[in-house]
């Protein structure tokens, strides 16, 4: 039945495979466009290394060539990734395009590639073979989506800083997506060579890159079957036109361009938005899970968990933080107050690894200052941000699930094999996340996107996400900003409840009433230095604090003064 359409069907498969090599980097938010270079290196290497005749009489060269190509693509991506992955956005895109073009020029000029004339190989790829590869890739991405690694990819895509603070190793995740992209591009290159039987440098030029990117985005990179849809669409459109008798050379690019434009303007998630049904609202996991019992116990009350000496941060000529000594003991609720610009956020950024200190030493839960954020998170530091950093294209529940990253085990490989233990681990993470949503009162909004939440709810969601990491030390940066006094009072009681559970809380706040209600110890910063420290009410009454924080005349205790 499919006779006569074999070529078209195989071309769709090849287009989908190429698009998967873009899909995997777009999933992690990386605009990497070096796939043409990886495919080219892989295709040339495998056609030159693998014997042209069937090996051992029956194994076709493409079967041997595929792993060779994938390995070459992955290795090339790793080598290129080392210097290039420090770049982001457009810079990453252009650097990788430059790599692809350099490969093309070298291949074009080298002798072992036979230059611009290219190489000839036998055609070994049939349409069923190509579709088996597509099916394998689709399976790999289908299983990746709701796994711990899949959530890490999504978190890095949405917000690298927040992902790092939730314990995701951002550098490794980006590199993993880059290497996977290289491997898939390598597979594409090999399949291309053994399908068309011909390999020239011009095959792997910039237009290939544009095609792959367009296919991946058109199909939609948030859903695992996006690349297949995109490739089917882009291959089918010219065929339909041909069937309708619209053969004029310019109509095809015009219609393709117009359709592409329409999709990108009116279907923000790509074509896959048409096919993915609304996901059912997430439901409370069964009562048979008592996930909180299985977590590691928190340190005993009063144990020192962090100690820093002479901590300082200098930006150019500005001393944001100067010579701060700080000791934190388990179970306390430590408030940090100070006028705007006093260095409060800089201080907690250094304690959570977002910024390296200029001077000073010490450890937080055993992690030396200056380490990368995910190290602190893995050790048990969890935080929220002054300007909330939520993963905007994930649901409320998925946001909190990212928070469980450091207290759950990787599930992806076990999910591929459908091991029951993977399912158990995922359900445990779900139960943990759900418990935190209930704790902050957002369980009824679990299926929404953060954009649909009120300001106060967004702040609560961030706290739930931070709590899902089962932190020893929870850092809250102005959690009550923008909350009304009822919400602030609820927050204060939530914080006290956490302290009763043994969580150490460090929080920055301008709401003095809330600080006095919630914290057990108060530190006051001004111009980057500690000017007072101790029992909250005593510190708040200290004349120096009153002067620095409220201004000399405002000593009449304004409760919710926002300086």
């Amino acid at each position, binding site marked *: 039945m499919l006779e006569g359409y074999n070529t078209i069907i195989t071309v769709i498969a090849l287009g989908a495979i190429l698009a998967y090599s873009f899909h995997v980097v777009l999933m992690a938010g990386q605009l990497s466009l070096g796939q043409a270079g990886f495919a080219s290196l892989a295709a040339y290497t495998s056609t030159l290394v693998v014997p042209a005749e069937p090996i051992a009489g029956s194994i076709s060269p493409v079967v041997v060539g595929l792993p060779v190509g994938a390995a070459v693509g992955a290795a090339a991506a790793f080598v290129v990734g080392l210097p290039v992955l420090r770049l982001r956005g457009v810079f990453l895109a*252009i*650097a990788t395009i*430059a*790599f692809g073009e350099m490969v093309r*020029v070298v291949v074009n000029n080298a002798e072992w590639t036979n230059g611009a004339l290219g190489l000839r190989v036998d055609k070994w790829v049939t349409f069923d073979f190509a579709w088996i590869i597509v099916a394998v890739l689709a399976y790999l991405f289908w299983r990746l989506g709701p796994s711990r690694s899949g959530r890490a990819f999504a978190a890095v895509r949405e917000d690298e800083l927040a992902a790092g603070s939730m314990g995701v190793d951002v550098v490794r995740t980006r590199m993993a997506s880059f290497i996977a992209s290289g491997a898939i591009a390598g597979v594409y290159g090999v399949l291309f060579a053994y399908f068309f039987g011909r390999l020239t440098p011009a095959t792997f030029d910039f237009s290939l890159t544009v095609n792959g990117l367009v296919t991946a985005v058109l199909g939609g990179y948030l859903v695992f079957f996006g690349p297949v849809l995109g490739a089917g669409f882009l291959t089918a459109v010219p065929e339909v036109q041909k069937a309708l008798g619209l053969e004029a050379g*310019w109509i095809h690019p*015009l219609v393709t*361009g117009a359709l*592409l434009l329409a999709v*990108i303007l009116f279907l923000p998630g790509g074509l896959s938005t048409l096919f993915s049904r609304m996901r059912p609202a997430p439901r409370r996991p069964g009562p048979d899970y008592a996930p909180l019992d299985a977590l590691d116990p928190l340190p005993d009350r009063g144990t020192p968990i962090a100690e820093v000496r002479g901590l300082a941060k200098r930006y150019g000529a500005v001393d944001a933080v100067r010579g701060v000594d700080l000791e934190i003991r388990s179970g306390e609720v430590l408030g940090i107050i100070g006028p705007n610009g006093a260095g409060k956020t800089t201080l907690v950024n250094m304690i959570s690894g977002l910024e390296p200190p200029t001077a000073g030493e010490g450890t937080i839960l055993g992690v030396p200052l200056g380490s990368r954020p995910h190290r602190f998170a893995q050790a048990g530091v969890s935080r929220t941000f002054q300007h909330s950093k939520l993963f905007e294209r994930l649901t409320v529940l998925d946001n909190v699930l990212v928070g469980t990253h450091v207290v759950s085990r990787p599930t992806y490989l076990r999910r591929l094999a459908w091991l029951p233990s993977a399912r158990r681990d995922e359900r445990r993470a779900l139960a943990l996340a759900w418990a935190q949503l209930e704790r902050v009162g957002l369980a009824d909004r679990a299926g929404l996107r953060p954009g649909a939440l009120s300001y106060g709810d967004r702040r609560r969601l961030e706290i739930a996400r931070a709590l899902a990491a089962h932190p020893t030390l929870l850092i809250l940066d102005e959690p009550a900003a923008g909350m009304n006094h009822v919400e602030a009072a609820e927050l204060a009681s939530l914080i006290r409840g956490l302290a009763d559970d043994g969580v150490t809380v460090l929080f920055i706040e301008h709401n003095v009433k809330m600080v006095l209600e919630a914290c057990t110890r108060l530190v006051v910063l001004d111009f980057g230095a500690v000017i007072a420290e101790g029992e909250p009410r005593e510190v708040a009454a200290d004349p120096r604090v009153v002067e620095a924080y409220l201004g000399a005349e405002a000593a009449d205790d304004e409760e919710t003064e926002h300086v």
Partner: protein
Amino acid sequence: MLQQLANGVFAGSIYALFAIGFTLVFGVLRHLNLAHPAVFTAGAFVGIEVAARTAIPVWILLPVVALFGALAGVLVERIAFRPLRGRDDEHFAGLISSVALGGIVIALLQARYGTEPQSFAMDYFPDRLFEVAGVRVTLTQLVTLGLALVLMVGLAWLVSATPLGRSMRAVAENPTAAKVLGVNVGRVTAGTYALSSALGTVAGALLALNLGQAGRDLGASIELVGFAVIILGGLGSLWGAMAAGVVLGIAEALTIHLFDSTWKSMVAFALLFAVLVLRPRGLFGHVKVREV
């Protein structure tokens, strides 16, 4: 040798003219407009057609082309970028929508002009050959270089000293603040695209004048070099793009002189790669560090 250098400077002036349009839009609006090469190509074709139909001299032809370019620029912004404003994936989507629009423009060119390259009439711009200190230059090359310089200086003046330029710089710094302070952001955006595309179309017409003809791949052939120029110059930096265009033109000419023309494009990309890895802000530019 000197001849090669001169050729490099002429090629570089076209690169620069192409690239400042590119970089202007990025600098002000953070859009990478991938329809720019197609608009560049359209400029060449429109220039050739208008010249053939009206026989107007070149100093009238180029303003006509620029006017067409300005209109095209406004359309590009309206169609491919404005509808995406405020979306989560604004930047990815803008790349794709401008690629799509570029494809549409090229298809329309094919519909009107067919697949064959179009040529200026042989006697349209009587070319003369000068010889200065053993270096041969054509009148077209001199006009191109002179015009490129005038346009670039003019643009720099416009950005630094006129009300429109001031609004553009305000939008580049902070669109929201600019809006609050009464800058008509929509008009500035349209103006930026109009300027950018006017420069792009004039560059296309000038390149066609130098080559005598233009094919549909005119823009695609210069697109990647354009990327290299804007990165080398520092993304968003006008003076950087101008300098980098000329530097790249010379570097390519020297490569042809020392090695072989097939290695020509290697220079641009090797330089580009090295600069991105070692000094991402570009040779001449500076990049604002995003606040946490």
